[in-house]
């Protein structure tokens, strides 16, 4: 750069100085802002339920608690993805007293590492309120409970009722009927199965369901727990069945977000979609949402049947050392009450209550149907990323499933690669 002549500095320098002084004062502000002391009546809550409906539902049940107990609840809402990405550090830092989270492996993992605290005391008041399986999913191997469950958003094959009626489609019960329906839909100019897996994790749903139907829930859970080889005929059969279904899927799933795939169902471009109840957020309330219907993922093997349901369970846990343990337990107990679960699930369209005594009379036909599937399920699973080690699920399986979707003819090589990576993560 070339030298320039000196500027007449008087005014400029003064304004610069003033600017710096002002900024100095501002720099001191964050320090001053930290001068508040903690109120013993306050309990803090971190929620990852960030949709407008979910926020409203959280406000409602927290409001009930505040009115009943006289405590004040400070809610911190984080978007779920960001929160998931920072959870490890979050729990080791200065976490809130109560934290919304997921049951299964993901609770067990933190319990074993001592990052969350035992809430079996709260469970004493919840005796008989939940099924034993739900209780197990909220427990660690030490037999104690670490989570109070509140709701679930189960998976099924969703479709528009009116579209099925107009075209005379029947809900398929078996693999053959399913494939036949797909072929009919294709002839009628529809995309049979909406598919969007750009985010990666949505691809796990199809693997889970095929594995559940072909190899049964027991094998499925053991496989995800690292007990079986991934380079096995069973796993290759799952990918094989998936490869046969792929032509019935919407093309190019890897570039399509899950919300976009759901939208094609709303717009009657696709016939069906394997998805969780959270699909309901995308359907405009009223006519469209009322038109939504579903059926269980069909049977692929008559001996295994089709009664295993993927029903990820959400709930609340207490941080390792809550600053206000009594109030935290009181809040957790409140979240486990029938009233709180009913109020919450009435507002959040994706959530079904888990309590056995929950009032189901207010359910929409769709909710009633899904709820029946859960109640009569032969087995409940969570979802691949909740039933397995998170590092395996996200770092190995997502790229592997994406690779399968772009090169479905290469199954043997794929399962061998998964197995190699599995060994390096799970150990021998």
């Amino acid at each position, binding site marked *: 750069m*070339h030298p320039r002549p000196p500027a007449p500095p008087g005014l*400029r320098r003064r304004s610069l100085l003033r600017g710096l002084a002002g900024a100095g004062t501002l720099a001191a502000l964050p320090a001053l802002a930290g*001068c*508040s002391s903690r109120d013993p009546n306050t309990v803090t809550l971190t929620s990852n339920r*960030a949709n*407008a409906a979910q926020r409203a539902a959280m406000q409602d049940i927290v409001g009930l608690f505040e009115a009943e107990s006289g405590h004040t609840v400070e809610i911190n809402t*984080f*978007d779920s993805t960001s929160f998931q990405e920072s959870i490890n550090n979050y729990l080791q*830092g200065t976490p809130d007293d109560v934290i919304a989270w997921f049951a299964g492996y993901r609770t067990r993992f933190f319990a074993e590492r001592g990052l969350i605290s035992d809430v079996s005391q709260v469970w004493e008041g919840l005796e008989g309120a939940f099924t034993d399986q739900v209780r197990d999913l909220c427990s660690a191997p030490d037999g104690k409970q670490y989570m109070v469950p509140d709701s679930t958003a189960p998976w099924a094959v969703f479709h528009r009722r009116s579209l099925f009626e107009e075209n005379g489609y029947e809900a398929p019960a078996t693999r053959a009927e399913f494939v036949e329906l797909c072929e009919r839909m294709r002839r009628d100019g529809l995309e049979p199965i909406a598919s969007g897996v750009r985010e990666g994790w949505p691809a796990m749903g199809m693997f889970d369901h095929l594995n559940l139907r072909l190899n049964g829930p027991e094998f499925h859970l053991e496989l995800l727990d690292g007990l079986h080889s991934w380079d096995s005929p069973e796993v290759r059969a799952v990918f094989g069945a998936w490869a046969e279904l792929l032509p019935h899927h919407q093309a190019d799933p890897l570039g399509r977000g899950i919300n976009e795939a759901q939208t094609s169902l709303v717009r009657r471009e696709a016939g069906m979609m394997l998805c969780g109840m959270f699909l309901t957020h995308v359907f*405009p309330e009223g006519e469209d949402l009322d038109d939504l219907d579903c059926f269980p993922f069909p049977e692929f093997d008559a001996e295994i049947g089709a009664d295993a349901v993927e029903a990820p369970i959400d709930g609340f846990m207490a941080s390792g050392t809550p600053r206000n343990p009594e109030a935290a337990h009181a809040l957790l107990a409140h979240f486990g009450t029938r009233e709180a679960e009913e109020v919450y699930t009435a507002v959040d369209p994706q959530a079904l209550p888990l309590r056995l005594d929950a009032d189901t009379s207010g359910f929409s036909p769709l909710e009633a149907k899904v709820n029946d599937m859960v109640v009569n399920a032969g087995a409940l699973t969570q979802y691949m990323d909740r039933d397995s080690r998170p590092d395996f699920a996200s770092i190995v399986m997502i790229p592997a499933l994406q690779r399968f979707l772009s090169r479905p003819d290469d199954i043997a090589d794929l399962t061998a690669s998964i197995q190699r990576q599995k060994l390096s993560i799970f150990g021998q």
Partner: protein
Amino acid sequence: MTATTLPARRRRRIRPARAALHAFLLITALAWFFPVLWAVINSLRDYDYTTVHGYLSLGGFTLDNYANAWTQGEMPVYFANSLLITVPAVVLTLFLSSCAAFVLSNYSRRFNLLMLAVFLAANLLPPQALLVPLFRLYTSIRLPYWISESGSLYDSHMGVVLIHVAFQIGFCTFVLSNFMKAMPTSLLEAARVDGASVFQQYWKVVLPLCRPSLAALATLLVTWIYNDFFWALALLSSGDKMPITTALQNLQGAFFVDYNLLSAGSVIVALPTLIVFFLLQRHFVAGLTLGASKG
């Protein structure tokens, strides 16, 4: 000024070239601006409408997204947090890096090149890679409670400010030291002759001359620091301390994103950086006239 004394004949001859230049700029600028415009148009539409009719339709226009983003996103609180992080971080970065650049560009070159490399290389490191050790460091630095409610550097605005400063010093020092090296040494010599101390030389002679450089860096720093949500998310745990960019993410749910609402929120959030750019752009122009007056 010499520029105005160019022969008029020359001016007229380049007219067609001018027209082509303007046409080129206009077309490129429109191409550049169009994606933003398209997003802004869609931020003005109702989500249910675009779900049913698709983004390629027109209709469903509403201002609700902006109103909802403002209230649902609780924006005033988070704007204040962003201010409390961005302003101190930018000022501190510019002050410290101009200090460092002053020393590095005027004293003992060998050692200083090494220091410059240390600063600059730090700027190149991937922040994600430092996350785990840094998190440990932050939770282990104890601070009195009157400074940080959490009792440590973790979960305090000060911690976020410091990491931004540490990361940005490198680039700013580099730019400023280049700038300072190009200054005539006679200025400093004269100040020394007048008995000015080292700090006075820096503060009264060099710093005022760096204004154009500082303005350009301030524009960039404001953009970077204000738009960052990585450090805030990693080093803050209280929702009420988050800056606006991180809080904006809270408009998305896990399984559902109302993109129209989110982009309305993003447009609101982008306004301060745009304003800063427009304000500092004027200073560039001022710096230009200063240089041209040499003639």
